Each structure stands twice: as C-alpha cells, then as structure tokens.
C-alpha cells in the first residue's frame, strides 16, 4: 500500500494492543481496592465495557468522533460500520499507517474512558444501569468531545488547544463524569463508619504495573508513528510516573510516617494521567515537574476535599484522573515547546505568551461542562426508567452475588 510505513504501522498496532491491556489492568487496579464481596462486579464493569464500547465504536463511534465534521462538534455517519475505512491512510490523521489502524488505536481510548468512570460508583450501582450509562455517555459525551479535540474540523482543535493523548478527552471527562455520577447515586451504606478496605492490594499493584506498561502505548502510541516523537513521549510518560510515585511516597512519609503500597500505586496512576495531555509537547525536565506536583494535588483532593465535600467517589476517579489531568492540561499550557514538537505553534506560558494557556483553560472548561452536564442529564434520564442503585440488602450481600450470582474466592474464608 503506497504511503504505508511498516514500522509505524507496527508501532500503532502494538500500541493498540497495549492500550487494550490497560482495561484489564484497570479492572485489577480497581478490583483490588473494593471489598471482596464486590470484586467481580467491579472487574466486570471494565470487562463488560470492553465488549460494549468495541462494538459501538465499529458501528458508529469512529464515524461520530473522526468522521466528516458537522459544525466543529461532531462527525457524520459517513463512516458508520467503518465503511470506507481500510488499508489506505487517512492523511489528516496519520499519513503513514492504514486508516483502519488509526481507528483501532482510537477505539481503545473509547473503551477505557467509560471504564474509568465505574470506579466512582463501585459497590452500589446496578450492573445493567452501568452498561446503559456507558452506551449513552459514549454518544453524548465521548464522541463529541473526541471530535472537538482531535477530529478534523473540531473547534477545540482549531482553537489551538493541545491534548496529546487524551488528558481532556479521556481523563478529565471521566473524572468529572465520575464525580457527578457518584454524587447523584449517593453514598455507600456504612460509608464513613466502617473502614474502607481494599481486599487485595497485590491486585492493585498488578493493575498499576499493567497500566504503566500499557500507558506507553497510550501516550507514545499517540505519536501515531515510530521515531523521535514516540521516544520522547515514551520517556516523559515514564518520568512523570516515576516522579509522582516518589512524591506520593514522600507525602505519606511526611504526613503519615509510612509510604504505603496503595499510595505508591495511586502515585503511579496520577503521574501517568497528568502527563497524558503533555507527553509529546513538553521537555523531559517538565515531566519531572508535572509528575512531582500531581501527587500532592491529588492527595489533597482525596484526603481533604473529598472528606470536606462529603461525596463518595469510591475509588477516587475524580481525585486521580480529574484533578490529575486538569493539572496536566494546565501544565501543557505552561511547558509546551515547539523545540520538542513542531506541532506546537503557540509555546507554553514559560516560553512565550499566554495564548496557549487560554486555549487550554477553555478546553478544560468545555470538557468539564460537557462531561458534568452530560452525566447529570444521563443519570437523571436513566433514573426515570429504573433505579440505578441496588437495594440496601443487595449492597450488604455484595454486588458479586446480587448482580452476577457468583462469589470470587469461594474456597477462601474471611470477612469482608
């Protein structure tokens, strides 16, 4: 196929596989943090979406997100069923790989984003309601947002806002949606009384490890070609994760005397999230700053803000992904440099004028508004048809039993 570069194609396909693996990784990251009577439900939230969001993407998602532009906010249905998306490249998106490879890579983002949200509503939301939420949310929030930010003709893209690998599209949108959804759903029973109990911290570490591994595909794959830019994004990603891991351990050491494994895993994830919008735009040293700063911010959000405001974001999706990537988007506005990536036309605040920062803030604001507003409406509408929350009895029996008729570790005794 003319114009196809086999090395680039390999990179994007491998990256796609890596990002796919992040969703099982997330299932373990989340699953280890819930009580043992809810672990399967929490994991199934991710796994079920791997099915649903894949099919939706092939059917309409890619076309709505990346298809021919309508008014800067959404793509048309021209490419529904991926018709016309084949071996030839789409020069506007990725000139050296099959258009199909680009569609595959983007699909993986459309899978993990709604999966992220499920962490906030864990241990109490009906499984069926979660799937319906995912279906509607993808159409109402994700596809338009992806189009605006990344689609040819998207207005945030035209505005000059930068989002290398999905800071807004993936993390801020998931974090804010998670916040709104968990507030509408209400607190877990006994929340605030009994202790939060991650039932299997090694699983959390396994998840964090797989996420770190997969995130190389997420961020460096977003170069959409192999070479210097991919290598650069690869290294900023690793560096930010490392810095955030260290700074989270440091905070815990200072405030609670001991660095925890759960904290380390959390630090890894917020560091990876924060660098996401910036990975291919900022210098390596900036990645250290971004990572080092994100942990205190998220830590503050989780341990103070959440308690103050009293919402029950079960696995801290807002605190990690929302706060983390709002910071990441702002940091992009600070540190983006055309020396790193010629695609940066407006330099970051510390290098030049504030134009880029303004675009960044607008993009973040729009993301918050769309994700927050969209989620509010969706939850309310779903509430007209069904109660999205399980009964108290089902909650105390555990969602594994009530939603799936199973228990995760039937031959191990213990107490939840």
């Amino acid at each position: 196929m003319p114009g196809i570069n086999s090395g680039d194609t390999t990179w994007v396909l491998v990256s796609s596989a890596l990002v796919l693996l992040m969703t099982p990784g997330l299932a373990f990251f989340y699953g280890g943090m819930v009580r043992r009577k809810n672990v399967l439900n929490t994991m199934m939230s991710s796994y079920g979406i791997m099915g649903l969001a894949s099919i939706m993407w092939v059917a309409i998602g890619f076309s709505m997100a990346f298809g021919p532009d309508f008014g800067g906010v959404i793509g048309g249905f021209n490419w529904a069923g991926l018709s016309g998306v084949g071996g030839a490249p789409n020069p506007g998106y990725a000139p050296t790989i099959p258009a199909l490879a680009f569609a595959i890579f983007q699909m993986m983002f459309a899978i993990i984003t709604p999966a992220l949200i499920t962490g906030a509503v864990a241990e109490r939301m009906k499984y069926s309601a979660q799937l319906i939420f995912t279906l509607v949310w993808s159409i109402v929030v994700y596809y338009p947002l992806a189009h605006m930010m990344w689609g040819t003709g998207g207005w945030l893209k035209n505005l000059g806002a930068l989002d290398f690998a999905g800071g807004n599209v993936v993390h801020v949108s998931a974090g804010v949606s998670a916040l709104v959804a968990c507030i509408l759903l209400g607190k877990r029973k006994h929340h605030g009384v009994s202790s939060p109990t991650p039932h299997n911290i090694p699983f959390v570490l396994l998840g964090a490890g797989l996420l770190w591994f997969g995130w190389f595909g997420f961020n460096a794959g977003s170069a959409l070609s192999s070479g210097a830019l991919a290598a650069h994004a690869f290294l900023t990603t690793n560096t930010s994760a490392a810095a955030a891991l260290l700074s989270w351990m440091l905070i815990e050491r200072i405030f609670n005397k001991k660095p925890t494994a759960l904290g380390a895993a959390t630090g890894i994830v917020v560091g990876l999230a924060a660098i996401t919008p910036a990975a291919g735009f900022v210098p390596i040293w900036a990645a250290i700053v971004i990572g080092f700063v994100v942990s205190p911010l998220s830590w503050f959000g989780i341990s103070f803000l959440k308690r103050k405001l009293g919402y029950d974001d079960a696995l801290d999706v807002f605190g990690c992904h929302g706060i983390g990537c709002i910071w990441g988007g702002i940091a992009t506005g600070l540190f983006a440099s055309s020396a790193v990536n010629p695609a940066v036309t407006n330099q970051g605040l510390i290098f030049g004028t504030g134009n880029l920062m303004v675009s960044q803030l607008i993009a973040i604001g729009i993301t918050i508004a769309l994700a927050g507003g969209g989620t509010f409406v969706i939850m309310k509408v779903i509430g007209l048809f069904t109660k999205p929350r399980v009964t108290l009895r089902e909650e105390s029996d555990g969602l594994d039993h009530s939603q799936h008729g199973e228990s995760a570790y039937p031959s191990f005794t213990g107490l939840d």
Partner: protein
Amino acid sequence: MKKIEAVVRPNRLEDVKEALAAININGIMISQIMGCGRQKGWKEIYRGTIVELNFLPKVRMEMVVSDKDVEKVIKAIIQSAKTGEIGDGKVFVYDVADVIRIRTGERGDPAL
C-alpha cells in the same frame, strides 16, 4: 460465666457488632465458617448450569460474658441479626470453667 456463640448472616456482622457495643460487650472473637442448615444454598451459575451450594458462608461471633449478662446479650443478638427468613442462624450457650487475662494474670469475672 458463659460463652455465647452466635452464628449469623455475614451481612449482619456490623449490626450485631454495634448492638453488642451498645450494651458494653466488647470482647468478641469473630470468624467465618461455612454452615449447613435448613437454608437452601444460594444458587450460583456455572457456565450455563445452575448449581446449588451446599455450604453457605456464615459469621460466628463468640463472647464470654458473666452470667448476669447472658439474657441481655441474647436479646441484642436476636434483635440485630433477625431477618425472619430461614438461615438467620442460632445462638448457643456454654458454661465456662475459667478465664484468665494473659496480660495481668487476672482470673474469673474480672478478667472479662
């Protein structure tokens, strides 16, 4: 002194614990057991086949209390553990010959 052994549903644990704390019973041993009784098992689905579980997870709470507290404790357990459906569990009462607090060597009622 008597030992009171209560077998209750796992999801009642926190409530029973609170009910006991309310009457100042704080020394408790808790363990998970598998129980058989009249309650038919939960049904679980295994690749399209419904299987009925023989043994159901239950929580056992054991506490040694002085004789005068026995009825009070039983009442608190019943009130907090009862749902009225089969499988609510049982309370067993046993005599205790002696108690020793390891830390101090105290024996009998003061050791509770």
